C-alpha cells in the first residue's frame, strides 16, 4: 500500500493505492494522525486505486471520521473505486463516509488549514516511509578523488595527497586526515566522512580515538585526502523510515535500495541518520602512507590483521549512526568513473555503494522533517563521537555476520548528475 498527500486548497487530499486491509489499516491511521499533528483539519480521501477494503480498513476510516469531528474538522471519501463504494454502501456507512461530489467545495468548512508540509507516505519492502520534498530538481556533482586501487599493494605519498574543503553544501568520504600537509598527516591517514559542515576521521596512529572538525563561523572543515569521493549540491528529498513490523530490523542494503527507488535515479548520494541495531564495518589500523617493507598485499592473511580492524560481529548497537555515501543500481562497469569505489551491498542486491559511518551514542531526535546541518552540528557539539568505519557486508557463509541493521531514521538523497575525476 502507498499513501500520498497533496495540499489542495483548503483540503489535504490523501490518496491510497493498494489494499486497505488489516495489515495496512494501522498504517493509514498513523498517516491520518500525522496529518492532524501537522495541522490539517480537512482531509478528503481518494480511494480510486484501492483494490480491496476490509472491515479493519473501514474501522480506520470511521475512527478518522470521529477524530476529525472531535476537532471540528472535516473528513470524508471524495472518490472511490466501485468495489470500495459498494462495501461502504452495504455496511450502511455511506452517509458518514462518502462525500457528495457536487457538494464538495461547500462541504469543506472554512477552516484556515495551517501550513502543511508536503509529505507522502510510502510503504514497500517491509518499510514505511514519510517522504518530504526538499528541492525536487536538485542534483549532485560527484568527484572521484585519487586512486583507491593503490591501497592493497602500494604506499600513498605526498603527490597523492590533496586538501579538500567540505562546506555545508557538500559531503564526502574516503581515506584522509586533518592536518596542514602530507607530512603532518602521514601517520594518521584513515577513514573519514564529511557532511553538513562537519567532518569525522579515525586516526591510525594507535590512539583509537576518532577526531572531528566542526564548521563554525568562517571555518570550513578541510581534509587532506588520499582518495575518496566528494559530492556537491543540494538534496532533492528527505525521508523518515521505520520497519512495517516494529519488531523487525531494517537491513542496510534494503534501506539503500528503497532510498534509491525514492530518488528515482540509478546513481545517488545519500546521508543517513539512523538508530542502529548494529553495524558491520572495518577501518584502517595503520596509515597507508607509512612505508612498510615486507607487506606486498595488505589484504593477505595474516598481513590483514596489522592493516585492518574488523569485528566479525555487529558493533555499536543502540547508537546513532551518521552515514554518508553513494549508491548505484546495477554492477558498476569499467567506464563507470566511480566503479573503483563501489562494491555490491549484498550478494543478492543489484545495488552497489560505498558508505562510511560516524557513530555517536544514542539520543532521540525530533520527528518529521529534519534540517541536516542543524542535526549534524548538534551531534558533533555533543562531543561524543565514538568511531568511524567503512560499512561492509560480511557475506561469508555461516560464519559471516551479515550487514548493518537499523531501527529507524532519516535519509537525505539527491541523484548524481555529473561525475568528475581528479588526480589519479
Amino acid at each position, binding site marked *: 500500500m502507498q499513501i500520498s498527500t497533496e495540499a489542495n486548497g483548503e483540503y489535504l487530499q490523501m490518496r491510497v493505492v493498494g489494499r486497505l486491509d488489516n495489515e495496512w489499516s494501522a498504517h493509514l491511521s498513523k498517516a491520518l494522525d500525522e496529518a492532524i499533528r501537522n495541522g490539517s483539519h480537512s482531509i478528503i480521501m481518494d480511494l480510486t486505486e484501492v483494490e480491496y477494503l476490509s472491515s479493519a480498513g473501514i474501522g480506520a476510516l470511521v475512527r478518522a471520521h470521529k477524530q476529525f469531528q472531535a476537532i471540528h474538522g472535516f473528513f470524508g471519501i471524495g472518490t472511490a473505486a466501485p468495489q470500495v463504494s459498494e462495501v461502504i454502501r452495504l455496511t450502511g456507512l455511506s452517509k458518514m463516509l462518502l462525500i457528495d461530489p457536487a457538494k464538495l467545495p461547500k462541504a469543506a468548512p472554512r477552516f484556515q488549514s495551517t501550513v502543511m508540509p508536503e509529505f507522502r507516505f510510502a510503504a514497500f519492502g517491509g518499510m514505511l516511509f514519510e517522504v518530504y520534498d526538499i528541492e525536487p530538481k536538485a542534483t549532485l556533482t560527484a568527484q572521484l578523488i585519487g586512486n583507491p586501487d593503490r591501497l592493497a599493494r602500494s604506499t600513498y605519498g605526498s603527490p597523492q595527497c590533496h586538501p579538500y574543503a567540505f562546506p555545508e553544501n557538500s559531503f564526502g568520504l574516503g581515506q584522509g586526515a586533518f592536518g596542514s600537509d602530507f607530512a603532518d598527516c602521514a601517520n594518521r591517514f584513515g577513514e573519514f566522512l564529511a557532511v553538513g559542515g562537519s567532518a569525522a576521521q579515525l586516526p591510525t596512529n594507535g590512539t583509537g580515538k576518532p577526531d572531528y572538525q566542526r564548521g563554525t563561523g568562517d571555518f570550513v572543515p578541510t581534509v587532506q585526502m588520499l582518495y575518496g569521493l566528494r559530492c556537491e549540491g543540494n538534496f532533492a528529498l528527505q525521508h523518515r523510515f521505520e520497519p512495517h513490523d516494529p519488531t523487525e530490523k531494517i537491513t542496510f542494503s534494503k534501506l539503500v535500495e528503497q532510498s534509491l527507488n525514492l530518488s528515482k535515479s540509478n546513481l545517488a548520494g545519500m546521508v543517513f541518520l539512523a538508530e542502529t541495531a548494529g553495524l558491520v564495518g572495518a577501518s584502517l589500523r595503520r596509515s597507508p602512507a607509512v612505508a612498510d617493507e615486507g607487506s606486498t598485499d595488505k589484504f*593477505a592473511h*595474516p598481513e*590483514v590483521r596489522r592493516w585492518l580492524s*574488523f569485528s566479525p560481529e555487529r558493533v555499536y548497537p543502540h547508537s546513532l549512526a551518521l552515514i554518508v555515501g553513494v549508491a548505484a543500481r546495477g554492477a558498476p562497469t569499467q567506464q563507470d568513473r566511480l566503479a573503483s569505489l563501489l562494491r555490491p551491498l549484498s550478494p543478492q542486491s543489484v545495488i552497489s555503494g560505498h558508505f562510511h559511518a560516524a557513530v555517536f551514542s544514542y539520543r532521540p531526535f525530533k520527528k518529521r522533517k529534519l534540517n541536516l546541518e542543524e542535526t549534524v552540528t548538534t551531534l558533533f557539539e555533543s562531543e561524543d563521537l565514538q568511531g568511524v568505519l567503512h560499512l*561492509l557486508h560480511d557475506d561469508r557463509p555461516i560464519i559471516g555476520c551479515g550487514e548493518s541493521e537499523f531501527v529507524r531514521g532519516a535519509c537525505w538523497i539527491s541523484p548524481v548528475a555529473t561525475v568528475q575525476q581528479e588526480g589519479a
Partner: protein
Amino acid sequence: MLELENIAKTFHAGTPNEVRALRGVSLKIEPGSFVIVIGTNGSGKSTLLNAVAGSFIVDTGRLKLKGHEITRWPEHRRAQFIGRVFQNPFSGTAPSMTIAENLALAAKRGRARGLGWALGSSVKTDLYERVRAMGLGLEDRLDNAIGSLSGGQRQSLTLLMAGLLKPDLLLLDEHTAALDPKSADQVIRLTEEMIRRDKLTTMMVTHSMHQAANLGDRLIMMVQGRVLHDFQGAEKQRLSPEDLLARFEEVRCSEQLDETASEMLSRQYV
C-alpha cells in the same frame, strides 16, 4: 637497569605441544621505572618475568641487568638483584616457620650480599617497626606460624620480604589476584608505597585494568609472546581502564580475523 634484546623462548620445541611463549621481546627499562605488564591469558607475561628471573635460560636473545650480561646466569645468581612475589600467597614462605623467622630468613639472604642485617635484637626491633608500618596489626603476632595467616596478610608479608632488601628489580606476577577486593587494595597500597619510597625498578603483571591504568609510569601489553603496545610518559598517564579494555577488544577481533575474513575484506573493503 634491565635490557632485553630480542629474547625468545619455545616450550616443548619440536613436539606437538610446542608453545612459542616469547617470540622476540626487546625492552629497555630505566632505573626507578614502574612497568605494568598486561595481556590475555597465555600471552607470555609470566614467561617474560621468569626469563628475567632466570627460571630458565632463553633460547635466543640477550639479557642485561645492572650492567651485567646475565643471559646465562642461573636463577640463584640473579636472585641477589631480584625480589619476586607470585600470585599464590603460599609460595615464597615457609608455612611452619614464624613470621619473624621468615622475615629473618629473607633478611639473611640480604646479608650474604653484605646488606648489613645482624640477627640480634636490633633486627627484631627493625622488623617490628616495618611490620607495624604495614598497618595490619601483625606486629604483635611475629611469633605466630606464617601458615596461620590469611592470604592477604601473607601476601603483604611476602611483599615486605621481597622489598626488605631493596632489590634492584622487583617482579610482581598477579600478586593480588588471589585476594579478596579489600585485601587486594591493601596489598596494592603497600606495593605503591614501597616502590615509591625505595624507588624500586618494578615489573608488575596484573589483570586488573583499574590497577593497570592507575599504577606505574609505563605499560606494556603482551600478545602472543610479543609486546604489542608500549605506553610511556603522558601517553601512559592518560590511559583509562576503558581504553585498555578497548585494546583487548581490538586484539580479540584481530585474532578472529582468519583467511575467510581476509578474503571477504579483500573483496569488500575499499
